């Protein structure tokens, strides 16, 4: 038996202390990704530190920010009245993810940390640089229909599969991390990484750190928002492409806008140049189309995912259309 130790802790401090004692320990939150990885032999921690009882489940307004604890469940966040009112884009994105059963146990921290769904990553008989650096990338030249078109490297073209994270990057969230020495904060857009030469690293969380909470500024975006997820079936499927859109309209003029994509890169993909283009312009189809084209500047297909070169701008346009048309 591949034995591992199971430890349960009730405070962030002790969780961090336990983690620092063992390089091969892992936090266990909802377990919806980690346990699968263990079953497939992709991850074999010798210590599981169950953090479900650590009191980090808060969903609250503090000043002009919303704080969400790392252990709040996806369902709790999506159904929170506060989130629905102040950050409806986040609620929508969460509801587009996984299934009700999974969302009930999946946590905010776990969602950020979930690994890619690339099939080669999960099959230990296949090459995969992310799982086994240097073994090659199975997806390049293989089945890459679900894979990235932005920010890839010759080492890895995987996508980050989260829906929640797409909304968070659009909403300028910040992540609060803690280790034994104290807390640090990092912009959400800097949390996840591009594959580069280190495809094995998904993000910038350090070995000894715990995700503590998110802080999200309250935006004027509450009405003209939309999370559009294009997928192979209506529910319970990962995004081919998804778009999180928030517009602040004054009449038909775009005062401010946030745009981010999922299913297209190794990290949630914020579209800053498209945002800059749209700011101050009229909310017209022509402008939406131009903004969508701008987003595609550095896109690259790998064969089976070439269709994303067309689907991505279309998804951006449709998400903008839908956000605009919200009464």
């Amino acid at each position, binding site marked *: *038996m*591949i034995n591992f130790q199971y430890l349960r802790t009730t405070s962030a401090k002790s969780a961090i202390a336990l983690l620092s004692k063992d390089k091969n320990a892992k936090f266990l939150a909802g377990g919806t990704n980690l346990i699968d990885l263990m079953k497939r*032999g992709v991850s074999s921690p010798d210590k599981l530190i169950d953090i479900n009882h650590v009191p980090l489940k808060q969903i609250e307004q503090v000043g002009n920010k919303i704080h969400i604890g790392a252990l709040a469940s996806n369902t709790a966040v999506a159904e929170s009245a506060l989130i629905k009112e102040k950050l409806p884009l986040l609620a929508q994105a969460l509801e587009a993810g996984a299934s009700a059963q999974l969302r009930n146990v999946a946590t905010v921290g776990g969602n950020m940390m979930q690994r890619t*769904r690339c*099939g*080669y990553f999960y*099959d230990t*008989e*296949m090459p995969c640089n992310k799982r086994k650096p240097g073994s090659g990338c*199975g997806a390049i*030249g*293989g*089945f890459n*229909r679900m894979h990235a078109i932005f920010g890839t490297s010759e080492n890895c073209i995987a996508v980050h599969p989260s829906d929640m994270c797409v909304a968070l990057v659009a909403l300028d969230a910040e992540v609060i991390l803690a280790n034994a020495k104290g807390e640090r904060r990092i912009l959400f857009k800097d949390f996840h990484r591009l594959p580069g030469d280190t495809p094995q690293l998904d993000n910038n969380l350090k070995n000894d750190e715990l995700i503590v909470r998110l802080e999200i500024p309250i935006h004027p975006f509450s009405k003209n928002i939309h999370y*559009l997820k*294009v997928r*192979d*079936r*209506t*529910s*319970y*499927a*990962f995004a*081919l492409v998804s778009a999180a859109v928030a517009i602040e309209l004054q009449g038909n003029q775009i005062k401010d806008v946030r745009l981010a994509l999922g299913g297209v890169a190794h990290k949630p993909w914020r579209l800053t140049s498209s945002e800059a283009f749209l700011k101050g312009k009229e909310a017209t189809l022509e402008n939406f189309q131009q903004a969508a084209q701008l987003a595609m500047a550095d896109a690259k297909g790998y064969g089976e995912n070439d*269709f994303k070169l*067309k*689907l991505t701008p*279309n*998804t951006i*346009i*449709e998400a903008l*259309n839908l956000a605009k048309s919200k009464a």
Partner: protein
Amino acid sequence: MKNLMVKDENDRVDGVLKVTGQAKYFAEFELPGLTYGVLVTSTITKGKITGLDTKSAERAPGVIAVLSHLNKPSAPLYEQEGGSPMKIFYTDKIFFNGQPIAIVIANTFERATYAASLVKATYEKEAFNTDLHKALKDAAAKKLQGQPNYKRGIENAYQTAEVKIEQEYNLPIETHNPMELHGIIADWKPNNQVTVYAKTQGVKATQNTIANVFKIPLTNVQVNSEFVGGGFGMGLRTWPLEIATVMASKHIGKPVKLVITRMQMFTMVGNRPAATQKVGLGATKDGKLTGITHTAFGESSTYENFTEGVVNMAKFMYQCDNVNTAYTIVPVDLGVPIWMRGPGEATGAFALESAIDEIAHALDMDPLEFRIKNDPEMDQQRNKPFSSKNIKEAYKIGAEKIGWSQRKNKPGSIKEGPWQTGYGVSIGVFNANRGKASVKGVLKADGSLLLQSATSDIGPGTGTGMTLIAHKLLGIPVEKITFELGDSSLPTAPSQGGSATLSTVGSAVNDVCVSLKSTIAELAANSNMSATSDFISVLKKNNLPSIEVNKESQGGKERDNYSLYSFSIHFVQVKVHELTGVVKVSKIVSVGDSGTIVSPKTARSQMVGGAVGGIGMALTEESIIDHRYGRYINNNFADYHVPVNADVPEIEVHFINKPDPVINPMGAKGMGEIALIGFSAAVANAVFNATGKRIRTLPITPDKVLA
């Protein structure tokens, strides 16, 4: 099976058991001393095992045995040379990736799983191919005739027709993926008596195979399979993994349970094989078909041949004097396929029914009108009348219910915002079978009736149908009738497949009931009771606690004079998003023309299930292989997309419900397959009508719509 709280006589007799968890599936049987098997599978696609290191597995905690070709656990049939079925543990050859090469038995499932991960194989690899299209390009690749070529009239007559189309249609591998994982519990006793708890569509077939492989008398093998959590065809044979488990139990002298993983469900228990087909159709300018050519290539394996009825429908479904078909199977280095609901006919119907839509479009004709115009008067293939066929009536009902009059013949005509609406129709047809079956009936003085037959219920509601047949004939309340199945010691019945169970076993139930009725009438007459006396008083008067009747029943000469088929018409409405390529089936009307509907609720469920399966086939299901490695990529329920509730609109089901005059005493034809056959073409045709895009490769995913 016991009836519980039956509220409506048409309710499923085992519905309460199923929804309350009391129905016991094979894996739930707890036997004393039960041990657990886990398979070790090959990680190469073709070649030979050169070494198998089982030592650390054998030493692992709880491990009882590791069996493989190295120790060849006893199976007398396999000791003989030759023969087609793969002889598990009697060969070092690898025919496909994921092939079982060893079984580890331990005292817990977890320990067996771990120990299995410790078995290390070394191989001599050979070049392989798992891609049908590559095999077709390779002139040297083996190709085998799957069915004799068929020709009536002039070959390829479509080529010289006034209006013609010729197109290629492609289907990927589909995997049955019932909820219940495959497996078996085997309990071999020292006296060579073996009991198995199986997931099978044929308890008798499983009994036969086991008796045969182990060379023991049939009566030494007891097969139990009362409840099956979905079969869809994959339970129509006894797979090597089942034999391996029986071997294991025999070897260790303890009961062994094996339940395979979802990933193993993709490699070793069959699939709907990938197929590529060409259809050429020719017609006169006014829309009469003058030529049909249907050629198909289907995947098979290198170690066993698999064929199915891909090109059957082209031979008789439309009035046409010139028809030719060819069906070829192409061995690739994958596990052997097996029938999947609607089997080859569903594969063929996608091509033929798409092509019919294409030629109607080429003629600028309404495809429904084209179908009606070319509806056959008789079966031209067999030169016989159809025993019953009410297609025109079915077309009419379906067209009205779906709102066919809203449809515009010009594609892309109906649009609301970014959503384009389209309508599609197709026909499904399947042989209306009747085999041979035996049923025992025991009518008791307590007012109850017990019926028994070694048939199966993989979900359609066999017990319910049989109960209703008896209820109608004898007037006994349904809650007083018990139908027992799924037990090889009961009177013989064939496997549940080919939509034949209701027709076959139902006929025997009918004969038993008719015979019981006449026995009661005789007894009544002999004891001076009135002819209308109820059977309870007759039995009591005669001091009989019960009477028993055994009947074997099979069809007669009706097939000499008639052509027997079941039909379905599928109408769908779809909405297609012009920017994202997303297709949503927004309305479904399926009309079944399958004779008398014996069991209205379960019949409706069949049609609903077929439509859901059809949505999967049309829009979402595809087993993806990386042909460089010969390994499946999406072998789990997150990535292999069966439709979810949100993909399924309300499904309207209608039945013609007119008895077939010849097939059997009930006048009922089968309907399990027709529920699915043709459905995918209706969706593809609707997508074309919505967008003007003809998608000839399933599934119709957003990338294909956008292309």
